[in-house]
């Protein structure tokens, strides 16, 4: 499951003006800007439509001009005239650099370890960055709520060098001590299993939420709160996290979106505000 699918089906209710920044910046804009900044130095990005697409487009024009976007539908280097409505929107095709069959995308690009950063979303994440996008509930056969499932999320997690997780809504229901179902395991969880190939990358390294940013870098490291957005009390982030969230001793406050970033987003990248709700 790419970010967008979960995003639009599960959490699209929280698209109000983001009050926590004390500005007119929306939550979507905030997440897009911080996702884009985190792409500095990364060149090949696997992304869903919506926020990740916006973030990559913004990065192209700011921190990472050579970044190449890859969609699950097999499209690389898309330059669509308007925002795509999904990863399989045929608007991605005209003017793209390549359209690969799905065998190439899954075998040679994802499993082939060609992705620097994959954006994912999830219904639940735990402290090691393991992700659940399959179901909510105790009974796997009859879950309380059946979610879309993996799509290519398992392959993105296993094959990409890093995963960026974008969560519109930082709550204890989504940041949980224990997942109801481990759809996409990070390397620590994978290492505990008895068989199978180890993931190629580091798993989730960045989580970008409406409250701040968490990071982790080593297999056994927990997600740590390393920054909060302006005006956010770190204690609020801790309270909204279902595990005992570690807070960095060097906790920073994120830099608000610059006027230049906002202008790019609003006037150039998503002028009809399809995603910048």
């Amino acid at each position, binding site marked *: 499951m790419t970010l967008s699918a979960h995003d*639009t089906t599960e959490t699209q209710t929280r698209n109000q003006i983001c009050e926590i920044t004390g500005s007119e910046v929306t939550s979507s804009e905030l997440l897009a800007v911080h996702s884009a900044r985190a792409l500095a130095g990364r060149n090949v990005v696997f992304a869903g439509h919506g926020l990740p697409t916006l973030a990559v487009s913004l990065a192209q024009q700011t921190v990472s001009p050579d970044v190449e976007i890859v969609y699950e539908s*097999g499209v690389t280097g898309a330059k669509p005239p308007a925002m795509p409505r999904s990863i399989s929107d045929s608007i*991605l095709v005209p003017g793209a650099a390549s359209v690969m069959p799905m*065998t190439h995308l899954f*075998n040679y690009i994802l499993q082939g370890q060609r992705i620097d950063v994959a954006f994912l979303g999830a219904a639940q994440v735990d402290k090691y960055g393991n992700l659940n996008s399959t179901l909510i509930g105790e009974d796997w056969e009859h879950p309380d709520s059946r979610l879309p499932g*993996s799509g290519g999320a398992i392959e993105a997690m296993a094959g990409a060098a890093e995963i960026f997780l974008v969560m519109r809504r930082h709550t204890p229901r989504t940041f949980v001590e224990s997942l109801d179902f481990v759809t996409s*395991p990070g390397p620590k969880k994978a290492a505990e299993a008895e*068989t199978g*190939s180890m*993931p190629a990358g580091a798993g989730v390294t960045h989580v970008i939420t409406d409250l701040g940013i968490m990071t982790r870098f080593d297999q056994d490291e927990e997600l740590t709160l390393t920054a909060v957005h302006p005006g956010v009390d770190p204690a609020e982030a801790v309270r909204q996290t279902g595990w005992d969230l570690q807070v960095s001793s060097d906790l920073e406050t994120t830099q608000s979106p610059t006027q230049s970033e906002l202008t790019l987003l609003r006037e150039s990248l998503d002028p009809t505000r399809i995603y910048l709700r």
Partner: protein
Amino acid sequence: MDKTMSLPRAISTYLRDGDTVALEGFGHIVPVAAAHEIIRQGFTDLVLARMSCDVIVDQLLGANCLQGLISSFIANSSAGSLHELRRRIEKSDPKPLWFEEYSHGGMVARYQAGAAKLPFQPIASYRGSDLAAKNPRIKSVPDPYGGPGIHVVPALNPDLTIIHAQRADMHGNVQAWGMLGIQTEAAFAGRRLIVTVEEIVDEAVVRADPNRTIVPAHVVDAVVAVPRGSHPHSVQGYYDRDDEFSRQWSVLARDAAAVQDWLETNIRGTSDHDEFLATLGSDHFERLVIHDAYSTPVNYGGRA
């Protein structure tokens, strides 16, 4: 060999109750009209293989065509949930659904093994996933080159595969462009294969660009002309996707009775795909019109 036939005849000739049938197409060139014809003909106990679900899965479920589903993504793309499907899985309402679940990578590997007549295909991504724990058909083999054991998924060989494409000649040489999904592998994996197309073209058209062929004629059992056969999904160069239709479905299907009404009126109450399209309204495709963007020709020239 002329393999063209009508959609009703192709479906009745090549599908049997209880078959495993693959309908593939990843949000583009999807055999929607063929799914509707399966509903019209009242097939039952089918197992549907479909990587990325959409409205036709809800419709086939509502019409009681399916006993099982093999899939890796069961939402309605970005348009919301598939509520008929969720009722079946969450509440066994109106009855349980056998559901075999993979990731997209796992489905790709299954079709690939099926097309290649291999018993299984290795896959690197399942270590530590509950998906592997939940699905006993995901197994592992040792690595004789000294690495850790590796997961494998079994070949998927549908009794019937149906794909949709832009065009084919009457022999069954199929050409498609834009997003190609897993269609070539699903086609080769199928024991039987129906291809629906926007247009049947003269073979000279196909032969003017042989690299564009995604499935060669000898793999195809039936070629069926079904213009607009992918609606509400797009066909590159022909028409746009109909997101409003897909979104409305996710609203409508919250009500099981509404699904039955819709099927009765729009599918069982229509005799073919043209009549179904007429229910959308005569100007429906006007807002799905696309602009033209022709490829530049390449030179296939050789020794004369």
